[in-house]
């Protein structure tokens, strides 16, 4: 007896994950707040001048490792916490200052785009993927205790008080980092606050989404999100009319990369610690993770599955 080989598929049952182009490294040249902007063009240029040697070092290191490194640069503007000036003025000043300092900015992103990019609620998508770091003794019996809007790297101190009438009074205990060896560095990060109907995401939270975008790890139902678009000409007058990420240099290597490198002043250290506490608890879709690792292998590169290992910094003092 012979049997026919039958294939049958249903479209609604298939999960397809888009591939997106990847560079080797995404270098962040800086992060612009209103204060920095108001300090003027010269201040901006000086800042870029101080960043430049670090950016060049990244290129040198990578040239030693891979034959033709693809390195893209990017710059993030805060239009989320404070709104200032207009895109055309701010971006014009930025480009002039970086050019004067001998730096090329390939992509410019706005911070609001980390909350909602072109209609896709990125911050919420990432929030749904949080898998909290379980304190020792967690066996799934009950959902881990959580404080709405907060995420920590360990166990909080019990809040004290009495649960039941005539029950025992709880004694104070110190908080504890889950991965502590001997001593703890406990950190509790505020991810958001609600103001009426509006959820305000915190700066480290949006910065965590920013890292995920730069690593090309986010998808919406398998589709890429916050895809860079060529800079509109002329630039709009309203930030809301600007796409989440715009491409300034047509020939630039891809925005997203296997790894990221951020050149930041040391005052951002606590923010980046918080970013890592958040990112360490985001579960990346296994399919996307696999895709990146396979792509790397095709280029003969070993890409660590652990995303924290792909995120690097240069953190000089006040620059």
């Amino acid at each position, binding site marked *: 007896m012979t049997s026919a080989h039958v294939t049958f598929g249903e479209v609604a049952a298939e999960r397809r994950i888009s591939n997106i182009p990847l560079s080797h490294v995404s270098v962040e040249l800086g992060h612009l707040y209103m204060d920095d902007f108001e300090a003027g063009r010269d201040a901006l240029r000086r800042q870029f001048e101080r960043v430049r040697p670090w950016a060049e070092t990244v290129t040198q290191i990578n040239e030693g490792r891979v034959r033709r490194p693809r390195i893209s640069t990017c710059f993030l503007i805060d239009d989320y916490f404070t709104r200032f000036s207009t895109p055309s003025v701010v971006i014009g000043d930025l480009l002039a200052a970086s050019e004067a300092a001998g730096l090329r900015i390939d992509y410019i992103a706005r911070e609001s785009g980390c909350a909602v990019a072109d209609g896709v609620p990125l911050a919420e998508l990432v929030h749904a993927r949080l898998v909290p770091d379980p304190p020792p003794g967690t066996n799934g019996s009950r*959902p881990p205790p959580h404080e709405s809007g907060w995420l920590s790297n360990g166990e909080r101190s019990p809040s004290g008080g009495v649960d039941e009438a005539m029950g025992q009074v709880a004694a104070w205990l110190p908080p504890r980092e889950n991965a502590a060896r001997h001593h703890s560095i406990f950190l509790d990060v505020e991810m958001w606050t609600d103001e009426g109907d509006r959820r305000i995401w915190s700066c480290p939270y949006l910065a965590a989404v920013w890292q995920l975008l730069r690593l090309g790890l986010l998808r919406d139902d398998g589709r890429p999100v916050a895809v860079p678009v060529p800079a509109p000409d002329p630039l709009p007058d309203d930030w809301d009319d600007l796409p989440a990420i715009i491409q300034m240099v047509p020939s630039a290597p891809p925005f997203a990369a296997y790894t990221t490198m951020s050149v930041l002043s040391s005052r951002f250290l606590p923010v980046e610690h918080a970013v890592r506490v958040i990112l360490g608890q985001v579960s990346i879709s296994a399919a996307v993770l696999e895709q990146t690792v396979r792509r790397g292998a095709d280029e003969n590169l070993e890409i660590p599955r652990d995303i924290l290992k792909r995120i690097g910094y240069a953190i000089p003092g006040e620059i």
Partner: protein
Amino acid sequence: MPSPARSDAGGDGAGILIGEVHTGLLLNSASLRQDMLPAVLGLLPGERVRSFERPISHAVSPELLVGVDCDLSTASGTRVRGIGTLAVRAAITGGRVLQGSAWTRLMGGHAEHRLPWSHYLARPGVVETVGRRRNHPYHADLADGFLDRTNNRKAPGIDFGAICGQIMGEVQRSPYLDRRSPFKAARTTLRWVAEESPERRIGFILGDDGSRTTRITFDGQPISAVIELCEDLALHDWLLSTLLDVIDRGMPSDGPHETMMRRIRPAVDHLIHLWMPGARVVESLLPLWESLDTKPGFTRQWDTLVNRIRDQLALRTLTLLSASAEGVPGRNEQGIRS
């Protein structure tokens, strides 16, 4: 910064797969329409609900992860700490039956101590044991410990039940359901272990209170195929248990027919057409299902029950016919002829 590839993958081979499937009735008056499934099972925004229409309506939620760090159950009582994640998902079959399914792969870990959490999230659905151990007896100890629900010397281990219960609860509380089911049914729980082996084996044990255990081997099939087999097994075991219960209660030898009908009706309307063993099982694992169907003979028992119900219903129709024939003079011949 990327570094050139190295070849070693680390770890200790495939490890063993352990999991649990809980099965119950969806809390809705009508069976859920196909187009509602994505809304009800969309538990992770940005991830698609997979749905199938053939041969029977079936949809699966995206997989969620749950973190654990606890002592695992071992048959010997040896302390083994496991850290990592379980995958869990919900599924709805025939718009009627809800399942919560959680699993993980137990593997020998890389370290003597706990690593940063990002390490574990990079291996979704894997629980790593802390400390290096020899391979084989150690796996058997974990598998036996996991399947044995009575041994109280051992650590309670990962609470798969709570995790399955959690995700099923989430579905049952969906705003798209009306929570008025046409009948009530107890849940069953299937605890399973799957080990990689060229030798084909399957065992199934029926316990009290709707608890079952099964132990199977697989040989190169993807993990997803193993999980689907276990879910299919759990689904049919639940159908059988529920129908048995309905009949036990609905057919006391001398009860009035109305009571019997009230009890049996929902089962006839909502369950009988759902029997489709192996419908979603990959071909290479089907022999396992088939051997289980030979002994203890799921399908045989199911057919017997269904026939019993049909006989009762036929009898009922006959009684009705003769009753109306007696009650309404002159309708006699018509009644018999039609």
